[in-house]
């Protein structure tokens, strides 16, 4: 998986591309930690538009991201969830935990 980070108006946007699974752990964590650490970032959005697949480990990583956001009082949301990604998030009822844009 590739992660591209865009900063705009206090928002860090993590654009993920490819399979988001247990092999993405380090890359994803590094990306969101850097995003939170960047100056002026008030919220983090994970853009799932180009994610082909999401496994349960990826859901665990999203939970870690959510905890990090909570501890820093910076909201985290998921955007462009469609197809398989939306199905996986729906089955896990992650709409109860995340703001899905």
């Amino acid at each position, binding site marked *: 998986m590739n992660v591209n980070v865009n900063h705009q108006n206090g928002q860090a946007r993590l654009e993920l591309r490819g399979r988001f699974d247990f092999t993405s752990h380090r890359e994803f964590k590094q990306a969101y930690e850097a995003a939170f650490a960047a100056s002026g970032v008030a919220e983090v959005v994970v853009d799932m538009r180009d994610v082909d697949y999401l496994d*349960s*480990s990826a859901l*665990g990583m999203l*939970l*870690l991201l959510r905890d990090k956001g909570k501890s820093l009082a910076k909201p985290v949301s998921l955007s462009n969830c469609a197809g398989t990604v939306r199905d996986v998030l*729906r*089955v896990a*009822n992650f709409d109860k*935990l995340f703001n899905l844009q």
Partner: protein
Amino acid sequence: MGAVETGLGPDPAALAGLKILAIGDAEPQFLSLCAHLRGLGHELVCAPHGVDAPDGTAFASVIVSLYARHRPDLVIFDLGQAAAAGHAAIAALRRMDDVRWVPVWCLGLHPAGLSEAELAAAVGAGADAFFPRPVSHVMLTARLAHLGRYLARQRQFSTRDRELQAYYEAAEEEIRAARGIMDKLLRLQPDPSGVLRAWIAPAVKFSGDTVVAERSPDGSLKILVADGVGHGLAAALNVLPVGRAFQSMAQKGFGLPALVSELNHVIRRDLPSHRFVAATLVNIDAGEGLIEVWNGGNPTCVAVDSLGGVVEVWPSQHLPLGIVDSSELDAQPERRSLRPDAQLLLYSDGAIEALDAHGAAFGEPALLRALTGAAPAERFEAVKMALVDHLAGQPAGDDVTLVLLDCGAEIRRRAVPRPAAAMAALGESQWQLDLRIGAARLACLDMAPILQEFLGRVDPQWARDEAAFAALYTAYNEALEYGLLDLDPRIKEQPDGLTIYARERELRLQDLVAGGVQDLCISVDCLEQAPGAGGAQLRIRIEEAAPAG
């Protein structure tokens, strides 16, 4: 300018003394060569060339047995005139089962003096290098030093290789032991009643999926299908405490809400954060004629009738277990009437996400087609085979679980009359149990394990008697619902009646508290019957308790 390394000087990393098997005729040049090699500190094992042993053993076999006995680092062969016998011996050495590659150097006539065919024959037999005669001791010394360095490196690798092999074997042994323990801890008992069929295929050596089925004291059947985050050993360790807690609580008779809350609590308490577990819990109560399902994070559970029509679905309504606190979790299951012709299919996401050789997922539609297209008796195999065919030998990326529950088989199992001997035996002793409890607490109280525990102490035999316990539990529920709460049992017969009834029960319990009822008194009386009257009689009353003090 620094010193230039020639590579010919002594090298601390090189092997100093090699063991050399030297084969040649006892003539001056060969003997002088042997003396030179010994002078360099090498150990020599010498044998005459082309000579069979006195006992008639052929020359090649003599060389092979010398090689096997001494395990040299190098073989030097002075081929001399008997080249063919030398080639045969070299070929025999190369056929030996030795993980090392031991160089074979041949001394002989000047290579220029050998025909291409002769050289090819020697190389073909397994020779590595040729030295023309007379042999240059300087060149030979340099080559030996080079070989020493090479062998030192090779030994390093082979030590590492041995260490890796030992590590691998130890790891395999531990995996075998761990699997044995896990299988034992969460063993799914073969089900002779034919109610449950299950298939779990791990993606790797351990499965993060588990299926646990337990019968409660009242005879209801409780099933857990759990899928821990990830797969392999870490995921298997996640589901282990969950499965064990489920087993123990279901055996005690706890209902699904208590099970859901406790499993969630166990995961949050015992596992690293974000090691959540998708879980479906099912309770089939043939006595009450109902089925309850709680699905948190697993694919939709479906029920099909005898004709293959989908009659019920239980999609995931909740977060997987272990993510939020139990107080934030809605632990109430979805209740439906138990249909005698229904079969329930439960499965983990690994089943529908399994990819074929072209990267296409099996998918829910294909799974449902296989399920609904088969006769009831063949459904389990049909779904399994459709999935196996889809994979066509490909590994399934994630753990796969399929469970099929046959409601008809469960109803038939329940219909078999059970001996009430224990009931009669209890008639010999009378007892009474009085419980005083806050009305607010009664709403979230699971009475089954309390009765089970008490009965187990009074008479262990009775506590194990499913029919007797079911009768007691039914009597308790009737006292509560028809007596104290004044619920009309006919509500259950309406369409969707079970859900309405459950909601009404909850509301009336709330009304009780809101209406100022403080404490309730639950009394269970066991009365001795007249001889020949058929056993003991139980009476259960639940009423408002007189104010304390």
